[in-house]
């Protein structure tokens, strides 16, 4: 094992041996802090986080509950703002982006996968998957073609008319994956995607993510499961809002 303790002041390592990626920095966090102020309490969810994610990387994030993993993902996904520091997405500083532009960037650049699937109960499988394309304003024909392809990819075509509550958890999460990738976003953010699944279903979702990674997607995934960490090209460990360890590795490839 090749563990390297990252010194906060030592600058970012430009090359971590063993990662698979094109080398170009896609997301760069520098000195990022996030403070939640509730009533009298100030919670430092993130403190001075520095993290680069390169195109084509598969980053696995681990850490105890409350260590700031979800907060980190939400900032990477433009769902939340920073209290301090800078965040550059594809070379552009996020703070310079108009708030009204954020939805468009989320829609095109980022796909989300949640622990609790977060499908919309009133919409069919098909409509759930089509949603990002609808927001993108794609014409119906193209939308249909891409939704079919995405469903095909996750093996859920035969359930396209079902409603989420008619599916098992594993099936729901595959639909959620289809929805995340249907718009071909360069970045996938997954917060404990297997957290609510049994191991068989969890495995198959991980296979899917691994395939997507092999197909060129950049993935940031929170997981506690050491088995699934192995799919990543790099693991990041968080504690009390800080990145305390990073480790590059050779990923186990999808079978």
């Amino acid at each position, binding site marked *: 094992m090749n563990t390297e303790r990252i010194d906060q002041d030592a600058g970012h390592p430009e090359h971590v041996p063993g990662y698979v990626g094109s080398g170009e920095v896609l997301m760069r966090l520098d000195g990022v802090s996030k403070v939640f102020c509730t009533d009298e309490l100030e919670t430092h969810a993130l403190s001075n986080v520095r993290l680069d994610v390169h195109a084509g990387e598969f980053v696995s994030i681990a850490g105890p509950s409350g260590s700031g993993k979800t907060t980190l993902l939400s900032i990477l996904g433009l*769902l939340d703002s920073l209290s301090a520091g800078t965040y550059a997405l594809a070379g552009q500083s996020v703070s310079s982006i108009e708030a009204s532009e954020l939805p*468009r960037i989320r829609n095109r650049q980022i796909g989300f996968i949640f622990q609790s699937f*977060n*499908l919309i*109960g*009133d919409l069919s499988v098909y409509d759930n998957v089509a949603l990002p394309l609808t927001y993108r304003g794609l014409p119906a024909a193209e939308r249909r073609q891409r939704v079919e392809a995405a469903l095909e990819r996750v093996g859920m075509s035969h359930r396209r008319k079902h409603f989420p509550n008619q599916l*098992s*958890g594993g099936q729901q999460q595959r639909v959620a994956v289809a929805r995340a990738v249907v718009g071909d976003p360069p970045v996938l953010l997954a917060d404990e995607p297997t957290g*609510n699944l049994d191991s068989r279903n969890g495995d198959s979702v991980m296979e899917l993510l691994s395939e997507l990674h092999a197909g060129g997607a950049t993935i940031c995934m929170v997981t506690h499961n050491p088995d699934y960490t192995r799919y990543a090209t790099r693991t990041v460990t968080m504690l009390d809002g800080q990145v305390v360890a990073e480790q590059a590795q050779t990923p186990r490839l999808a079978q």
Partner: protein
Amino acid sequence: MENFFQDLRFGARLLCKRPGFTASAVLALALGIGGTTAIVTLASAVLLRPLPYPDSERLIAIWETLPEMRQGSVSDANFRDFRDQSTRVESMAAVYARDLSLGYGDEDPERVVGGDVSRDFFRVFAVEPTVGRTFSDDAYAPGRGRVAVLSHELWRRRFGRDPQVYGKTFVLNGQLHRVVGVMPADYRVAADARQQAPFDLFRPLHLSAEERGRGNHMLQVYGRLRPGVSVEQARAEMDTIAARLAQQYPSQAERGVRVRTLKEQFAAPLRPALLVLLGAVGLVLLIACANVGGLLLARGASRQGEFAIRLALGAGRRRIVRQLLTESLLLSLLGGGCGVLVALWLIDLVTLGLAEQLSRVIPVEIDLGILGFSLAVSVLTGLVFGILPALSASRSEVLLGLKDGGARATVGPGQGRLRRGLIVGELALAVTLSIGAGLMAHSFVKLQGVDPGFDEHNLLTFRVALPEDAEDREVVAFYSRLIDRLKALPGAQEVAAINHPPLIRQNMNGGFSIEGRPPWGPGQEPLTEYQVVTRDYFRAMKIPVVRGRSFSEHDRNGTTGVVVINETMANLYWPGEDPIGKRMRTGWTGDEWKQIVGVVADTTRFSLDNTRRAAETYFPFEQAQLRAMAVMVRTSVEPRSLVEAVRGQVRGLDATLPMYATQTMEQVVADSLGDRSFSLLLLCLFALTALVLAGTGIYGLLAYQVSQRSREVGIRMALGARVGDVRRLFVVEGAKLIVAGLLVGLGTSVVLARFLESLLYGVSAQDGLTFGIVAVLLSVIALVAVYVPARRASQIDPMVALRSE
């Protein structure tokens, strides 16, 4: 039991913790329950509760009819025949209402309504006096001393409830009368068919030979059925008697008889309005229930977490349902309590408004039965709407508990359907109610535009009545002096007098014949209204003279007898002919031919919403004196400001004469729409309540829906939805419900508005304008109720999608 108190305590704490929810639910319940209680109380008092007489269902009123008159007074001769020939009516009695002047000492004389009653009158009602006695047979013998029985009200007002009043004397129309008895407080037989003014006192009926004639219709007749006899049977018998009289006497040829129960007679004029109000308040109650149902539903669902934990801790489903029921019960009792306050206030308001028709005849007090009814309604409401969310909450919890270790795919569609149903229902009900109110309001606006035929502004009216035994000469002299004095008052422009001004609901009429035309067949003799006016009447009222001339100072006693007729009369009897110079003769003025010298425009006789026009004949006062006249004062100032000056002039001429029925003609015109404006006010009140309830109800349900779906909104935002996308999502969903609610409501209105038809004037029950305005108004209100939560939805923090574990 211990569980119950535990639930109660928990429920109370919960209500305190969410004051917004509690306040809106209690308010909705209070409005719905209070409104229902008030109107049901009134309706039952008027329509259901028996009159305060023993075996009151056996009491009937008997009227004569003519083909064009559904209900008219009875002549003494006919009354005697009815009474003597009937076997099914146990007792029958007549009363003749007279305006009397009550005065003694230095006090102002007061106008009272006296009932001169035939023997048996009090026996018909089976009511005993509380003080003294009623009239002995002696009292009816000619030449006996004058005696009177007081109403409770007069006894209270003028005799200070003196228990020793028996034998005391007082002055009535200048004559000494002796009190022999006092009737109980709830004995309030009214002096007219519309049941407006109860009699102040009673005297034995003495009629002159002329007054006894078969053609002199002036009595109201009441009867008591024999036990076991139905109204239908009595009606059949009276019809037979009337038919026999019609054969026997030519003057009776066309006359029939009308028998109604006293109850029916009293309730009939109020029934249409009360039924409409009852329907309206029923709709309000439904809306209030839907409103509270929605609130309870929302709360029940937002407490799913709590229920899940309770279930997990081993609470049975029945236990949870019971807890919810206890809470709902608590809520509805609170609402019911406040509802009683609302009801008391509404009943006060309504009895005040209907005082003319209701309170002086039947006292309305909230009774324990109705109170119980209102509480039952509130508890039932609580039960029904407690059970609905309780069932759905406990069911959904079990389902969710089974699903993939607590993960959920947002809310299922089942509850959403119920919620959408409530929104559509509330809106539809509000639309229906608003259209009802709108149609009434539109009718009212139309009526405001109706021209009564005279200028009612700046016009004061009051009545004076000289004693019956005053000489004709004195009468003419008195009124001409009074008119001259009043004209001299600053602020007075024109002064005139008439026997019965328009819209007063009193009249005097009779037959007539036309010179050179064959007499009408028996019973076919048409009627004309007899109007006696002083010279300047048309000018003072601003009634245009269409043809010929109005009266002049030459039309006096001793000169040619003249009359002026109205246009309806001219068109009816001289179609295409000039009536000026033609001569006619009336039953009232005897054999003398009267020459028609003018035609004046019609005035509205009965009420603004009664378009019927009567043939009218005006006689100059100096040729046809009456003792009692209404004086009309056209003023250049606010007419009320002249009242004291006018009173001074009347007193200056004759201190014993009461001046009564003092009012402005504007008031008279408004009063002729009195019942209508009042039911309109109530209906609008209910419609407004409905709008508020529906608006807040829809807002509440949608706001709740937004909060329920905040996670979905977060997901959508994470997927790239813009603020506008989210807002549109909720607005479009809301708009669909609005359209559905409007369509259902408009459809219901088309069906229900027909029941309003009898209350409408100049507006069709399907009036497009009203429907349109209501549809637009409610769309706007509903859209606001939709837009506000939608806006809030678009401000949801997208992080909720990630942080819902």
